[in-house]
């Protein structure tokens, strides 16, 4: 099964430092090697928002005020169970510190 994990920052999320980069690189490397991590990346704070309502489509350029709600990174993993996905997210959170992650199963393709 595939899961998408997205991470959001909160007020207490620490700024990334050298140590975090090293640990994160090692973690990504390890999960890729284990064949579990299919794709991952960080997301730019700027973005474009599209809102549709009836026939109307509003396109707004970022950055947006409520940055704390923005997704800052994602990982697409392939595992055998929800628990495995959670375990991976636990390790991820241990490395990045305060903040929140969402783990959602992907259906399809």
């Amino acid at each position: 099964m595939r899961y998408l994990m997205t991470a959001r920052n909160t007020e207490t999320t620490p700024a990334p430092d050298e140590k975090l980069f090293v640990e994160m690189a090692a973690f990504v490397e390890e999960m890729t090697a284990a064949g579990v991590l299919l794709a991952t990346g960080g997301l730019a704070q700027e973005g474009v928002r599209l809102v549709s309502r009836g026939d109307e489509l509003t396109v707004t350029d970022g950055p947006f005020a409520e940055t704390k709600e923005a997704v800052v990174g994602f990982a697409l993993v392939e595992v055998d169970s929800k628990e495995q996905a959670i375990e991976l997210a636990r390790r991820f959170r241990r490395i990045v510190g305060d903040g929140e992650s969402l783990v959602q199963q992907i259906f399809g393709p």
Partner: protein
Amino acid sequence: MTGPTGARGGGDAAAPAPDRSPPAPGPSGRDTPDVHAVVSAVWRLESARITAALVRIVRDVGAAEELAQDALVAALEQWPATGVPANPAAWLTTIAKRRAVDRIRRAEREERKHAELARELAEPMHAAAEPAPGDDTDESADVLRLLLLTCHPALPTQARIALTLRLLGGLTPEEIARALLLDTTTVTRRIAEGKRVLADQRVDFTGRPAPEELRERIGAALEVIYLVFNEGYAATSGEDLIRPDLCLTALRLGRLLARLAPLEPEAHALVALMELQASRQAARTGPDGEPVPLHEQNRGRWDPLLIRRGFEAMLRARDLLAGARPGPPGPYLLQAAIAVCHAQARTAEETDWAQIAALYQALAHLLPTPVVQLNRAVAVGRAEGPQAGLDLVDALHPDPTLQDSHLLPSVRADLLLRLGRRAEAQAEFRRAAGLARNEAERAFLLRRAAALGIAVTGPDLGAAAEAFLAEAALDASSRRSYAQTLRRLRAGLGETAPLGAVTADQVVRVFATAWGDAAAATWNRHRAALRSFAAWAGHEELAAGLPRRPAASPAARPAPPPRRDLRSLLRDPGVPARDRALWRVLHESGATVAAVLALGVEDLDLAHDRARSGAVFVCWHPETTPLVAELAAERERGPLFLSARRPAPARTPADGADLCPRTGRRRLSYERAEYLFKHATRELDPAGAGFTLRTLRAGM
């Protein structure tokens, strides 16, 4: 974050102390049901590394596995009470290593090892708190070593698969049994057997094999991984066409190996091949589980992520061949290149069949297997037209591996259909359906036959054969003999082939494949049986293409393989134990092949290096006895020499005496045994055909 512990703990994971801040919920707490799931999730992710590190410490695969299991049990006992530790993986590793130390201390090994182990133990505790990137290489080397061990050439293939799934995949014997459609006892036995062989091998648990050897060993590991993948991807038996969890396990192992041996082009090529094949998984089966052939698949359902990953792996393999590891493309690279051709075609019509046909031709040089030849014929049929494909298929040397496979008739059926020869195509689809072992595939083939809508008149072959055996006035031994002939005919043409549509040509093909190389007497016996059946059925013309063969003169008796070659072959640990035992018994006893294959476990008299065969004994050299004993293992009765597989439900049920009561596997057939020996001795034979089993009896 919604981890089961809820808390973020960076503390010393080595201490199995509660990590939860709320009062411990106790065994009945609300999280308890999750603990099992968490433990097994962590285990699946971590067991390879844990076991690999333990193997380095205790230098014994069996002991390492036990220690790892102990750690797992400890987690299952403690976590429900204490909560899941912050770093479960490190917890498991530490406990396992601690137990390894205890074990060695108990065994009072030398001081030197103590020191080594103390260091070993101190390091990961450290690493658990703060993972040191430098540790990684050691760990990778451990895991690679473990993978090469579980794929060790001294192990029988089945044991390699079971051990790899167990130790690298972290699967329980029950899970392995489910995945491979075996019973748990068989899997447990294979694992135990594998560990015993490894223990006897005195393998080097620490050193790195020489580059040449390493390549070869990696090749063996790739083979095991691809076998696992194929078992999942093209489920050979059972109800489901694909078993995705097995594919996923193989993919993971492949990705792992490619990381551990990054300079091995074939490792990346295998990953590419598997990613690309897996990308088609969703499109390969229809709503009712029926197979959808490649050219009819909805390409919009192919997984673009896996395709991209496949392309990337392919590029890595090609780069290596162009740079660090120059050389000709290997078999996985060629197969991956074929998969790339398919993935690049946006529609089936855009497929570059000429390129695929060329790749198959190159592949056929490396792997001249009938299945590769057949696939080449399919590609040529697309590139140059159905007649060219059909010519190639019909030129294929009749091969026992294809003889009972539905592949050959279903490919022929397709080509015939495209040539507009509908009646023949329908007959071939029916034949294929009769041979398919997978339910979904069989139903699909029957539907294709039915879609051709040609009315079938008269009885089908299976019913006619049964009626003949029941009605004709035959004594018991003729009936058995006739049944054998007709069984082969039914297997070759399909149970449901309408008798009226069977042609003399088809009969000739079945006979040539089954008994083309047999002694004249055998040929004539089957010929007589067929003539009798044909006369009974009012279709005398069926036997028209089968001339009687003159009996061979004794001078024409084939020569045995050269003595020196034979001796090393009989001692070659690379040959499966069953085959080695059979060949040695034949060679040393001088008994007939039929008599030796007919031996049962209950006939054995191992204390005297012999077995009872009717009123006489088949005797062999005492050195052969351990091999025979290994075959009998813990069985008390049933055939001594068993086929590798259990019979598929669709096959004619074997006589009870021909089935192993424990495993349900069938007695090894003469044809199969003959094929294996010929195959193994092909290189020793100047004519390149290989030797027959009978020649083994000739020279003591």
